[in-house]
């Protein structure tokens, strides 16, 4: 770009003005536009603004769970009276972070969830005081490329970290563990309760070979996709004993769970309103991140207990007499966890699966064939199925080839109409479950808002 960089105050003023204008025109909440403009007018802005946050910047990244985990860390920081600047759900590219920094007046700490591919650039720009690396799963291959490619970029980001920065990482993920292995200052976390593990790897688990010698890894316990208690029988490379570890995990269906966590600063008991093992990971990631900031263990439990699910992540709404549970399903690992979580419920399931193929979803819908929807058909748990979205017929085919009777399937591409059909089907039991992709979730949320049922997306904090 040949454009000269604008002075700091002028650039910030122009960017803020654009955001206000966009909001007034009803074009959304301006969660990314000001930052996009700011990065054009003055590319060094993010670095400058990050430097001015006295308590430093925390970055969280991973394929799944970053929105929920950022909310949990935020809850602990809020409870401690720390003034936090944060990006809103989904605004997790460079422009979203720049927008959040632009609105960070008076913040003591900045906490950002960061897109996996944006992590290297944002690490370089914000010089974070702590980085939390959660997981790498197969996701949107058309957008992110192979998992190996992201792992390589993360490795570069880690090597560029300040040696004093704390690197918090998921020891159950061998890819992430290997990425973190070069850094001097780390805090690892993992899940240790053998009762919640499974004994074999699910279909489409990536990265199940040793990162050091390529021999197949041995798993004493598998939790999600390729996460678990792993070791290499050939070269001896082994999952480190995590510094922060969940030693007891009691899952209570969709209502939540209880966790007993050991940390270097003492034990923590957590009672969460968030369901499923993926949220066990989010909670220990948040606990580890908070404990890296020397927050007292006894303050963490009460702060996390209050948090409800993030936007669309096991979020519950009522439409008339029907309870609607929304479980964002955007990649195989996440969708599989949603299915396992739904199956914890002891009743017939009425399901609405919404499949879009827009840029933010990934245009390639192949991934639905890597999801174990077959689990829903075992024991005839699926009472009704409605499919919707731009690629409703692809989802219908997926279930046809899983063995679901097409006669019992409703195919309605329009999201509002599909929602109504699912509500009718689920009215007998008073419960439906919605599995939307990301942009389908936005459509669903807009539809609920138009019915006066939910806040607009950009109001989500």
């Amino acid at each position: 770009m040949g454009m000269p960089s604008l002075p700091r105050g002028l650039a910030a003023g122009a960017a803020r003005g654009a955001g206000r204008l966009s909001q007034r025109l009803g074009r959304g909440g301006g969660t990314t536009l000001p930052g996009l403009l700011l990065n054009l007018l003055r590319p060094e802005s993010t670095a400058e603004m990050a430097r001015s946050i006295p308590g430093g910047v925390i970055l969280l990244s991973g394929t799944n769970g970053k929105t929920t985990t950022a909310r949990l860390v935020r809850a602990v920081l809020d409870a401690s009276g720390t003034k936090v600047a944060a990006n809103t759900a989904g605004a997790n590219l460079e422009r979203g972070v720049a927008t959040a920094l632009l609105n960070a007046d008076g913040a003591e700490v900045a906490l950002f969830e960061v897109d996996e591919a944006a992590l290297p650039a944002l690490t370089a720009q914000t010089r974070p005081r702590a980085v939390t690396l959660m997981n790498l799963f197969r996701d949107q291959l058309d957008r992110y490329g192979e998992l190996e490619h992201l792992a390589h970029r993360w490795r570069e980001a880690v090597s560029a970290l300040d040696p004093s920065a704390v690197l918090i990482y998921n020891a159950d993920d061998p890819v992430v563990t290997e990425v973190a292995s070069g850094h001097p200052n780390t805090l690892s976390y993992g899940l240790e309760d053998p009762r919640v593990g499974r004994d074999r790897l699910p279909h489409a688990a990536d990265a199940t070979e040793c990162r050091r010698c390529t021999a197949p890894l041995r798993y004493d316990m598998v939790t999600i996709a390729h996460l678990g208690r792993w070791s290499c029988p050939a070269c001896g490379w082994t999952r480190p004993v995590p510094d922060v570890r969940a030693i007891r995990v009691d899952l209570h269906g969709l209502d939540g769970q209880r966790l007993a966590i050991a940390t270097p600063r003492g034990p923590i008991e957590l009672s969460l309103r968030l369901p499923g093992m993926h949220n066990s990971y989010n909670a220990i990631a948040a606990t580890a991140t908070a404990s890296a900031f020397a927050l007292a263990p006894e303050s963490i439990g009460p702060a996390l207990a209050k948090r409800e699910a993030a936007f669309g992540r096991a979020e519950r709404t009522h439409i008339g007499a029907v309870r609607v549970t929304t479980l964002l399903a955007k990649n195989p690992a996440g969708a599989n966890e949603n299915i396992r979580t739904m199956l914890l419920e002891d009743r017939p399931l009425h399901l609405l699966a919404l499949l879009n193929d827009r840029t933010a979803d990934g245009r390639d819908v192949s991934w639905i064939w890597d999801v174990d929807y077959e689990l829903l058909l075992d024991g005839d748990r699926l009472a009704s199925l409605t499919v919707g979205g731009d690629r409703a017929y692809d989802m219908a085919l997926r279930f046809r080839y899983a063995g679901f009777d097409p006669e019992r399937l409703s195919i309605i591409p329009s999201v509002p109409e599909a929602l109504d059909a699912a509500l009718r089907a689920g009215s007998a039991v008073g419960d439906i479950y919605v599995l939307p992709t990301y942009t389908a979730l936005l459509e669903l949320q807009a539809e609920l808002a138009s019915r006066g049922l939910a806040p607009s997306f950009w109001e989500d904090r």
Partner: protein
Amino acid sequence: MTTGPLSMRLCHLYPDHLNIYADRGNIAVCQRRLEWRGLSLEVVEVGLGDPIPADCHLYYLGGGQDRDQALVAEDLERKADPLRQAAEDGAVVLGVCGGYQLLGRGYAGSDGRRLPGIGLLDVETTAGAGRLVGDVVLDATLSGQTRTVVGYENHAGRTHLGPGCTPLGRLRRGHGNNGEDGCEGAVAGHSVGTYMHGPLLPKNPWLADTLLGWALAHAGHTERLAPLDDQLEKSAHAAAAARAGKKR
């Protein structure tokens, strides 16, 4: 061997390593479309170090990450003779994406390294600058019939065909073999290679049944495959074709 309904055998090569583009969808389609016609399919999974059986009617190779494909290439080269023999005898061999490249003569990587192929298809692949990604629509020709086939491609390799094979089809949309000559895939006898996933077979029932028909004939079955109700398949095919290349 029992004397029940005719049992077909499919050899799924390297399911643990070559599965990146939901390849199991293609296997599921073979399985179900035979079952719905009262036939059964036995799937034999062959991994690194396992021998390849010579008596299967259909062989399938999917796509993998670069690192996995390199592991597989060396292993496959060592043990491909039964596969070559089966192909020569008329068995169906389908390679998708990385599997297509492995069926060719070889792959010259951007690092200068050459991965061997098994030469069932007279094609040569070279790593290109940038990936060819997006929707694909083509007019595919098999057994003298031409039909529209839809899919999605995501590959760095540029594949060029030699005189020993013909393209699977002419592109209406997408990059295909190399982004230059308007062709996609390669066919020689009953060996087919393509960059199209999506997965390939669910939305293209004509293609699936053509391959299954060949496999059935190779198994000694003389009757033709009974038609199925493909309403859903056709709708999904139409939806994919309509959205191909659209801004979204």
